[in-house]
């Protein structure tokens, strides 16, 4: 009679080993099945055998579900993954799918993948052909930038990272100058270095720029420009002066209402019509202007959110100290408002980085575009999977790092408690 009663504290001693054994059996079955291809439940009808681990695991989880069992680990387990039948089932299903999907992924990524070689013929295994990435790596990073000149891009980026690193460690007083240098002076130096044409450097036209370095260049410049424009637009939208207010609103809503791809189309085919005949603005600069204005409108809305969230008392306090409009905004309002909207700013910047691949519509090729070019190369057909997985991974690392950093910044700058 005791054996078929509900699991409780009294029969825990009998039920716990049986339940644990059942769960273990289920896990063993699915693991062996996935990794070694051995089916220990093969004697059962095929459909039951397929779901055998879930069924037997479910029974096991039912048997060990005892509230306040007195065993600390069992209680934690039950609370987190086994609080009721439905939860137990979900746990098992998740484990089942996870374990089943590990071997194929592992095989494709590493075990059956090819790492050595120089051409497609060296890819004999079933898995990914990472040779493709290896051979094209240079192009993916630098685009069509001539090989002997690539050190210039390297120098520009290494100097940038070194300067950013130094900025973190120098004293508060120097930090200001470093940041100003980084924002206003360094970009010009870097662009001169990369484009060349002076100081004995060979000129490299912007059409040859590409790959991941172009992603970084566009993101960096767009971020530097879109931030102040966004702040001005946000202030403009909250201005008391009707003309400025409505022009700001119109500008913001115009950009926010259309997809970036049409804006890029506009910069490519419509914008040249608006310039005097014969004037030519570089494609990269046109794209940069388009992306900057587009993201500035989003930035403006984020900053406006921060401005609106500030209590009125802050404005009144600043006014009562005799501050003018600009002094009040720069010293009192904006520092607080911007701090409030760090997550929003980070999201906008993330969106900007994620939007850079769209420049393919005007014929510029950053990382995703270069992969598109490489996979249509007759010698490397059928490499789309490897290429896009690689690009996805690279972008994922960049974006994930950015979002993590913004979360840390938000915590550090938070003045509450």
């Amino acid at each position, binding site marked *: 009679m005791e054996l078929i009663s509900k699991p409780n504290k009294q029969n825990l001693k009998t039920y716990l080993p049986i339940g644990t054994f059942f769960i273990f059996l289920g896990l063993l079955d699915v693991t062996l099945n996935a990794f070694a291809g051995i089916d220990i439940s093969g004697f059962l009808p095929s459909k039951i055998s397929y779901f055998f681990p879930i069924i037997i695991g479910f029974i096991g989880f039912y048997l060990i579900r005892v509230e306040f069992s007195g065993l600390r680990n069992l209680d934690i387990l039950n*609370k*987190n*993954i086994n*609080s009721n039948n439905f*939860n137990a089932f*979900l*746990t098992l299903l*998740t*484990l089942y799918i*996870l374990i089943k999907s590990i071997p194929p992924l592992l095989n494709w990524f590493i075990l059956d993948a090819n790492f050595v070689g120089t051409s497609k013929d060296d890819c004999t295994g079933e898995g990914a052909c990472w040779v493709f990435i290896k051979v094209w790596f240079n192009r993916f990073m630098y685009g069509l930038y001539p090989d002997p000149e690539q050190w210039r891009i390297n120098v520009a980026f290494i100097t940038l990272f070194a300067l950013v690193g130094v900025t973190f460690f120098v004293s508060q007083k120097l930090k200001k100058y470093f940041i100003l240098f980084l924002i206003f002076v360094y970009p010009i130096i870097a662009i001169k270095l990369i484009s060349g044409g002076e100081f004995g450097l060979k000129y490299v036209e912007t059409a040859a720029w590409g790959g991941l370095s172009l992603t970084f260049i566009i993101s960096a410049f767009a971020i530097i420009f879109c931030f102040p424009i966004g702040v001005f637009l946000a202030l403009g939208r909250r201005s*008391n*002066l*009707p*003309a*400025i207010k409505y*022009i700001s609103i119109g500008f913001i*809503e*115009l950009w*926010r*209402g*259309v*997809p970036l*791809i*049409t804006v890029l*189309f*506009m910069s490519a*085919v*419509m914008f040249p*019509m*608006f*310039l*005097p*005949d014969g004037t030519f603005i570089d494609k990269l600069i046109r794209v940069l202007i388009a992306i900057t204005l587009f993201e500035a409108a989003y930035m403006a809305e984020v900053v406006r959110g921060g401005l609106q969230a500030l209590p009125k008392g802050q404005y009144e306090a600043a006014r009562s100290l005799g501050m003018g409009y600009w002094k009040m905004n720069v010293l009192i309002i904006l520092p607080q408002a911007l701090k409030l909207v760090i997550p929003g700013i980070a999201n906008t910047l*993330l969106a900007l*980085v*994620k*939007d*850079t*691949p*769209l420049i*393919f*519509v005007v014929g510029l090729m950053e990382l*995703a575009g270069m*992969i*598109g070019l490489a*996979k249509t190369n007759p010698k490397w057909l059928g490499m*789309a*999977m490897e290429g*896009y*997985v690689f*690009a*996805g991974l690279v*972008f*994922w690392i960049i*974006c*994930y790092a950015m*979002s993590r950093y913004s979360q840390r910044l938000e915590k550090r700058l938070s003045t509450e408690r």
Partner: protein
Amino acid sequence: MNLKKFNIENKKIKNLIPQAITIAALISVIIYFATNAQINMGNRGIAFGFGFLNQEASFDITFSLIDYDGSYSYGRAFLVGLLNTILVSVIGIFFATIIGVVIGVSRLSENYLIAKVAEWYVEIFRNIPLILQIFFWYFAALRALPLPENAINFNDISYLTIKGWYVPKFIWTNFDIFFYSIMLAIISIYFINNYATKQREQLGKQLPTFTLSFLTLIIFPLITFLFFGVSLTFDYPFLKQLSPTVYTFDGGVSIIPELIALAVALSMYTATFIAENVRAGILGVSKGQKEAAASIGLNKNQILKLVVMPQALRIIIPPTTNQYLNLTKNSSLAAAIAYPDIVLVFAGTALMQTGRAIEIISITMLTYLTLSISISIFMNWYNKKMAIKEK
């Protein structure tokens, strides 16, 4: 006295100057652009105008919801593109909502594993550019599907191949009667709900509203099938041999891979944002609300339906509408994989053929702008209506 007056006037002038400068700058920029555009168009011998919309388009579109071929006008091609944009947006919104709600709720699950898996879903798909996801599905995942002769067979009803997904075609007779019956059912459900609310408020009676509504929705259309001559048959796709080695499917409806890739990528990407909204919404309802509801004797379902959801939805809906709007705008990435949406058909092919950059880009942007602005006007109205009226 004089000084005060002077100060006020001074301030007025001070306010006027920046506005005047801004307007003057704006106008001069517009005039500069307009004159240049006029000169440039004059040089190329094109006159500004929208008359080209009636000209014959003479290009084909691979996928269209309405009758279209090369002999139709550019205006018609625009309509085809617009409908395709709307189609993929609606499909995307539908699936993004379902995935988003499931993931959002899962992130708050008491089950540790489920919460972790949901969290990683969000972290992975949110941080990869949408265009890469579209490329991945189109160029990598869907290209791995078999050729028609080895199609993945779903019970002989539908087939998944590299050329697309073939599903049965619905062939209705008297579809209009069926449609009206659905309308009628929806109207009756509205009245049933009204009646149930009245009964509850006046007499304290609880009617099984959900069951009643559900039955109405089933019975009304069923009656039309039995008595009004509505019928539905299916046109199943079947394999056809074109030449000794080339096979294709005939009959049914073919869902092109471009549409599948775009819809999958859009809904999986947007779902991550919707999931975060759902999560924030549910977390935004304070615990005290649930406890208060429990203390006046509501059961678990009633708490969810009457107390938690109305408050959570107020937080969830505005940002989610924004996401729907983003999805619609993002559907323009279709141009990258040649799904014939408005950008590809109109701002791409039609622009190449006519060379009317200003007119075509303006129309395309205006279309999106109209969509966005009408939705944001609706949202503002909705927010005002739903805002908690504080005393």
